[in-house]
């Protein structure tokens, strides 16, 4: 019994070794290529490891070199201090409210418009779609001054979360993306549904909307990432710390800690990044596919 299992383990490890050996490069050019990939991987990962390990260092050692890459005696006090210095929970909640409202809003407006441009016929459709495409060329900074005037003087909602939500509810990119998805779905479904007595709204809501879900997921994940990480728009609209999203909070925290421990700031960065990491873990396929297709956001 024991012998067979030992043999089996030994065999398994040799096949594993064999496979590794076969995967190893044979020509010097291939070794060089692997070396290049590793060097860049180390350079991209190094700052990330540094952030996490330094956030766990004793406050007094936070800025001393050499850095401690693997934290030996971990100190979580930095994480506690984040909550004392800035209204961390309110700022994270603000980021969540803004991001989720914008994602939901864009899904609704863009799926309706994308469906209309793909499947419904109405006079002026081509001109209006061309107009939507043209707005994709306009960068946010070119419109921020009038939008600020409109938000603050026209609507009087600056320094509220509405100021960060309302202007972002419609998206030319989202319409373009979802139109592509609706175009790929065959039209036969519609005729079948009509024979079964479905009305136009039901055809959209119960047949085409669910079938476009990969596109909806791409839009959701891309928008989540872009909105959660937005710094410029909140900087223009927000003044009250309790209403800041977390990106402003982190820079604020850096200001407080100018003479203190940077470990606290890095702890804040680690905490504020957790939501996007979770989104990445569950939606990486959609995120990567979306970035490949669009590339306008981010």
């Amino acid at each position, binding site marked *: 019994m024991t012998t067979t299992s030992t043999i089996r383990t030994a065999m398994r490890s040799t096949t594993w070794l064999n496979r590794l050996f076969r995967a190893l490069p044979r020509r010097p050019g291939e070794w060089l290529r692997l070396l290049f990939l590793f060097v860049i991987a180390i350079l991209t990962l190094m700052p990330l490891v*540094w952030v996490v390990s330094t956030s766990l260092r004793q406050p007094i050692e936070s800025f001393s070199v050499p850095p401690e890459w693997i934290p030996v005696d971990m100190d979580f006090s930095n994480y506690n201090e984040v909550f004392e210095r800035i209204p961390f929970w309110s700022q994270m909640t603000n980021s969540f409210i803004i991001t989720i409202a914008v994602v939901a809003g864009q899904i609704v407006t863009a799926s309706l418009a994308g469906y209309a441009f793909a499947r419904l016929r109405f006079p002026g459709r081509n001109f209006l779609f061309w107009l939507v495409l043209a707005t994709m060329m306009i960068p946010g900074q070119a419109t921020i*001054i009038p939008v600020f*005037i409109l938000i603050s003087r026209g609507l009087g909602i600056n320094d509220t979360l509405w100021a960060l939500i309302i202007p972002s509810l419609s998206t030319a990119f989202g319409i373009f993306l979802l139109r592509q998805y609706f175009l790929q779905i065959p039209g036969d479904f519609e005729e079948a549904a009509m024979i079964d007595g479905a009305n136009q709204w039901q055809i959209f809501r119960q047949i085409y909307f669910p079938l476009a879900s990969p596109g909806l997921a791409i839009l959701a994940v891309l928008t989540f990432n872009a909105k959660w990480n937005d710094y410029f728009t909140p900087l223009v609209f927000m003044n009250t710390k309790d209403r800041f999203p977390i990106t402003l909070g982190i820079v604020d925290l*850096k200001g407080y800690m100018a003479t203190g421990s940077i470990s606290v700031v890095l702890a804040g960065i680690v905490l504020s990044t957790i939501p996007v990491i979770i989104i990445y873990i569950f939606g990486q396929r959609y995120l990567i596919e979306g970035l490949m297709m669009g590339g306008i956001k981010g």
Partner: protein
Amino acid sequence: MVSQAIQPKRNRIIQWLAADTMEGIRRQRALLGYLFIAPSIIGLLVFIIGPMIATFGLSFYKWNVFRPPEFVNFENFSRLFSDPRVFTAFRNTFLLVVMTVVMLEIIALALALSVHRLASRPLSYFFRTSYFLPVLLSGAAVAVTLGYMFHRDFGVINYYLGLLGIPKISWLTDSNVVLWSVSLTTVWRNLGFTFIIYLGGVSSLPTEILEAAQVDGAYGWRRLKSVVLPLLSPTILFATVTDIIKMLQFFDEPFIMTRGGPGDASRTVVMLMYENAFGNLAFGYGSAIALVLFAVILLVTGIQFALSRRWVFYS
């Protein structure tokens, strides 16, 4: 009384939209089309197209909120073209764009070509994830982090360079170096994005043509230069245009890392626009700067597409 008056009218509308005729269905769908695009079109008109026209209009006015706007004709533009700070900001932005985009495109393309040829799947997954992770972070978080790492006396980067015998570099306070620090920071954050685009392009290369090239004896550098790169040229154009447009709007990293300093050495166009509009409340002048930047973005994109006719190969 009132309802009786409305009744026949309502009936007529229902008949007009009746679902049992082809005409009725057509009308229903057209009406639904307008209803469906209405939220989006209103949003885009109010928050993008309208403001774009307003930016154009505002750039001919002098306005600081406290006094009513005053029409000044081309004064904002003549001020802009004679303002040495505007010149500096545009120069800095162009330098940043060139440095950043050249580094991004070369490294990302090399990475994509190398990762694609890896035989081991776990290894390829490890590399793809490593390069992509920084894309998830906000510009703010990256600027704060790299700002600490670039610190002259306590920064990790100077410490390791010191071990190699390189004297301390004032990454953020030397006006000759600061653009490099900001650019490297941005390369670090965006490399994964450009890499993913190139990897997509490389993975969809037609294998028959590559094999045919090998049969014809094209290997290594020769194969890269005369077969792979021409086939990839649409991807290269797309990635370069997107990166240039993104980098022309440089803001988060220099704003947080250096506040545009030392002096104006790392001030970008968007920073200058932000400071004029929201710091000095010079909305008219700020709009003029924004408009010139927009024109530059359109111009650069147009030039690239015009030039692309010479070198982009669509099969």
